[in-house]
């Protein structure tokens, strides 16, 4: 009886740990998706003319990106050691092998955001803002973001 309980308990704990790790990976993925929704779903689309220029929407997207970027270091603190089920992208284990370098890529993104914030007046300045932010995103994605399929 005791043994059964220990075995069941261990299995539950194990399953819990796996769930928790998947949960961490999902949180990290969701944060990146939230940024992408504004960066690509709003700023990129607007800069390409896929959706009409809207200063308020652009400002709102940039503010949302700024808030999300501030969370990256914390949300990526723990290595979930697995990818989100069925995800197209994942994090390289290098993030946690070189966490200090990973974290050092964040302030330049914040600077790029601060530099363009409140200065978007037309499509040209929007395009420039999108590109300058995206270039800093890429500095990190080049090393730490992995395509999975």
């Amino acid at each position, binding site marked *: 009886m005791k043994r059964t309980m220990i075995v069941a308990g261990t299995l539950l704990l194990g399953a819990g740990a796996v769930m928790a790790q998947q949960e961490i990976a999902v949180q990290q993925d969701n944060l990146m998706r939230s940024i992408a929704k504004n960066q*690509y779903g709003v700023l990129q*689309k607007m800069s390409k003319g896929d959706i009409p220029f809207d200063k308020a929407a652009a400002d709102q997207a940039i503010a949302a990106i700024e808030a999300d970027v501030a969370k990256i270091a914390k949300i990526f603190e723990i290595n979930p050691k697995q990818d989100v089920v069925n995800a197209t*992208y*994942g994090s390289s284990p290098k993030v946690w092998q070189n966490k200090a370098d990973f974290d050092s890529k964040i302030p330049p993104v914040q600077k790029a955001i601060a530099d363009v914030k409140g200065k978007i007046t037309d499509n040209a300045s929007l395009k420039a803002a999108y590109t300058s932010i995206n270039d800093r995103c890429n500095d990190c994605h080049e090393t730490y973001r992995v*395509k999975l399929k």
Partner: protein
Amino acid sequence: MLLRTLFAAVIAAGAAFALYWWLTAPAVLALPAPSRSPDLANGQELFNAGGCSSCHATPNQPDRLRLGGGLAIGSPFGTFYGPNISPDPADGIGRWSEADFVNAVMRGVSPTGTHYFPAFPYTSYRLASIDDVRDLFAYLKTLPPVSGKVRDHALPFPFNIRRNLGIWKQLFMDTAPFVADAARSPQWNRGAYLVNGFGHCAECHSPRNALGGIIGTQRFAGGPNPEGEGWVPNITQQGIGNWSEKDIADFLETGDMPEGDSASGAMRAVIKNLAQLTAEDRAAMAVYLKSLRPVQGPTPPQRQQGS
């Protein structure tokens, strides 16, 4: 009796070695006389199309034209280190002749007559026109010399035996030149030339067999990242069928994808190179890529356990 057996064995070994030596001999091109003086602008365009900088630029410094080498490039066979191809006379290619350079790029043979490893994509560059390679050589000579020899590749036996690559080349390297398809437009042909030749897109975007040869039937259909992490996408119409020609051309310039994302990983460095091309060359590549019929590639692993 023993002596006779021994004698036969020595003869057999000698014959086997002679056969091996003959099979693995590096084959070089006989270089025709130049038909014109070098065109540096064309050399620069091909430098960017060929992505030379991605593997040969000195890592951890911002100048993509300092080709001192040293970047570690992972593979299933060991780690390669991009060599110094700056015009430095001692450590780079400063003392190379034009014929040395053409044979290195188009045949994977060094000036001393040894095989280069196909991590250097001469398997694609062999489609280049000799005049284009001459222009590239002239352009490289205008870049700053960088001193410092790069360390040797870190490959375990038997992959470290360069001579063996002679057999690899027999198996997996075609040496036929690029032939334009008269039924297609000049733009499509320019794209085919850039994508298959200098662009060497298929080198990463195709699955490879156990010996590292590209699986021809699944060319451009994606596969595991040869560097080890993740997956290289299918770029036939199976994978990017919903991208328009303009979407592809835009992607090659900015890395922006129509589905609302941006290129990652090694493709970032490729975009940095391709962004420097003329818009016409990017458009030509897009026209060719859009024409690739859908091919099902290998299936990516369902779920990856990280480490």
